[in-house]
């Protein structure tokens, strides 16, 4: 009985994951096809056209875009981790007047959709002269209400006595933050880091608005650019570029999966 149950479970799961994964698999397969094969609706390439990948890198500065994306995503990730963790620390471990009110105010900004504040943000960045600069693509994202909220929830589970023991031993706030709070909250930090990395990696609208220069543009824009150049015939090339965009996300996900799961359930238990 158990074996039957297990087997049927796996069959269903495999079928579902195939359905879910089909676009990805097809994109992978199509990235090796010639334009003709794609239009004929083949599922598998007859011969492997590796030159699609070469073509993609030649049509647009895909390599430059890749480097930009990695750089921007990493900077935003570390920026968010640094700013959110320090803000969360203040909300949990420092006692000041109006702390609750400030926190509610801070959190309520999560309710404003990002698109609504896009125009004022754009104007601000423009005034600062950050159009076509990495600064404009990264710094506006450092202050994350979500990140602060997530970390605050975790920090609150750290027993108050730990801070008090540190206080008595003469360990200051910064040292306590660096040597106790951050290491203890590793899972939450990893969770937030992965989430931020992926969100930034997949961002499209903001980079589109604030960049015109290929030198700073990230991959997602490059993909779009490629698509508009190649639509009519070279689908294989576009799919090759799609794979280049998707692979880093997959790597990040695979590495972080364990941490992510643990972090999310930790949060759920709280």
């Amino acid at each position, binding site marked *: 009985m158990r074996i039957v149950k297990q087997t049927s479970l796996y069959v269903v799961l495999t079928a579902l994951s195939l359905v879910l994964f089909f676009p990805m698999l097809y994109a992978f397969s199509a990235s090796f096809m010639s334009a003709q094969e794609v239009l004929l609706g083949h599922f598998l390439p007859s011969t492997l056209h590796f030159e699609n990948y070469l073509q993609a890198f030649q049509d647009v500065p895909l390599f430059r875009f890749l480097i930009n994306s990695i750089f921007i995503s990493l900077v935003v990730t570390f920026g968010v981790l640094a700013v959110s963790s320090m803000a969360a620390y203040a909300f949990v471990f420092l006692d000041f007047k109006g702390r609750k009110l400030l926190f509610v105010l801070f959190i309520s900004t999560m309710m404003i959709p990002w698109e609504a504040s896009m125009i004022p943000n754009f104007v601000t960045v423009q005034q600062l002269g950050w159009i076509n600069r990495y600064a404009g693509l990264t710094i506006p994202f450092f202050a994350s209400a979500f990140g602060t909220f997530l970390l605050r929830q975790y920090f609150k589970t750290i027993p108050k*006595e*730990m801070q*008090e023991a540190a206080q*008595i*031993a*003469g360990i*200051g706030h910064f*040292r306590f933050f660096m040597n106790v709070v951050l290491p203890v909250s590793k899972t939450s930090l990893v969770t937030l880091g992965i989430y931020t990395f992926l969100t930034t990696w997949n961002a499209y609208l903001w980079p589109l608005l604030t960049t015109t220069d290929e030198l700073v543009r990230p991959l997602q824009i490059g993909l779009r650019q490629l698509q508009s150049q190649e639509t009519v015939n070279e689908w294989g090339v576009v799919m090759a570029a799609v794979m280049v965009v998707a692979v880093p996300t997959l790597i990040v996900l695979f590495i972080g999966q364990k941490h992510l799961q643990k972090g999310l359930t930790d949060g759920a238990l709280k």
Partner: protein
Amino acid sequence: MKSVELIDASKAYGNGPSVIEKLNVKINPGEFFVLVGPSGCGKSTILRMIAGLEDITSGKLLIGGQPANTLPPSKRSLSMVFQNYALYPHLSVRENITFGLKARRIGKEVLEKRLRDAADMLDLGRYLDRKPRQLSGGQRQRVALARSIVSEAPICLMDEPLSNLDAKLRGRMRSEIRQIQRRIGTTMIYVTHDQIEAMTMGDRMMVLHDGHQQQIGRPIDVYNHPKNTFVASFIGSPQMNLTPVVYDAAKKLLRLNKDWTLPVDLPFSSRDLTLGIRPANIRPDERAGENAIRLSIKVSDVEILGNETLLTFLVNDQIWTAKWEGQWSIPGGTVCQIAVSAEDLLLFDRENGKCIHDPKRPSKPEEVTV
């Protein structure tokens, strides 16, 4: 080693009611001082006021004779052991113990020596590289103690450090903590709700109730001469028997109810009182002296605890307990004679609970020497 003195110290959280009322106590250098009282009476609050984790609403705190109200916790020359130990989960035992020392920039050699000494003293040598979660409750407790010992602070504060341990381990740690304190001579302020810990560990203790200090003294004096009904019932196990009585000055007897009277001669006029008598002072008829006062009771329950026996019976609808040495197998419902001697009777004012008659109390309180 330093003294700690509280003068009229009071505490209220925010704008709330005061939870500590006008505390006055001087804790001598090197003394093992126990704060004892039921849960919620304000023991932790007092300890945290001394540590500087809570500010003092009014009154003074002197540490080593110097005003300390506004000193930050790290400048009060003390260490603290928390009820939940507050160990850092990501650090090894070794790092946990030396964490505070590193912050104080104590040299590597001194640090190593102190670590070794503390680990030897607490038998932690084998566990230095483990993480706290790989230790048992008792071992974590030892790490917390070691952390406090290596700081070599002249004052050590402990907040119910044994309450998470099982009974057997608690007994062992009691004497261990006591021995370590004697050896290093630190001034100890120890909080507990357990009167046995207070009785067995303290040089002196303070009994607290609802934020008010009830009595300060050597455990044995507090036990023998409780100042009021609260202390009388809180200290001692089984509890002291307390019953409302009326003193009839004309007939010179204490009346428990219409058939029960105890002939005693007291130096005051007729009034309402509370009678208190320790279970150990209620004796079997045949073991009591000539002058003992005898009463007959109906036994409701008997518990034989190895070499002593607890008898319970009803007096005025109140349960009394007697503790007799030896093994007495008396069936429930038996009527038997008990005896008490007049000098073991404590009498408290019914109104305010103060002890007004204590025949054994020395006329001049003994000097407390530490």
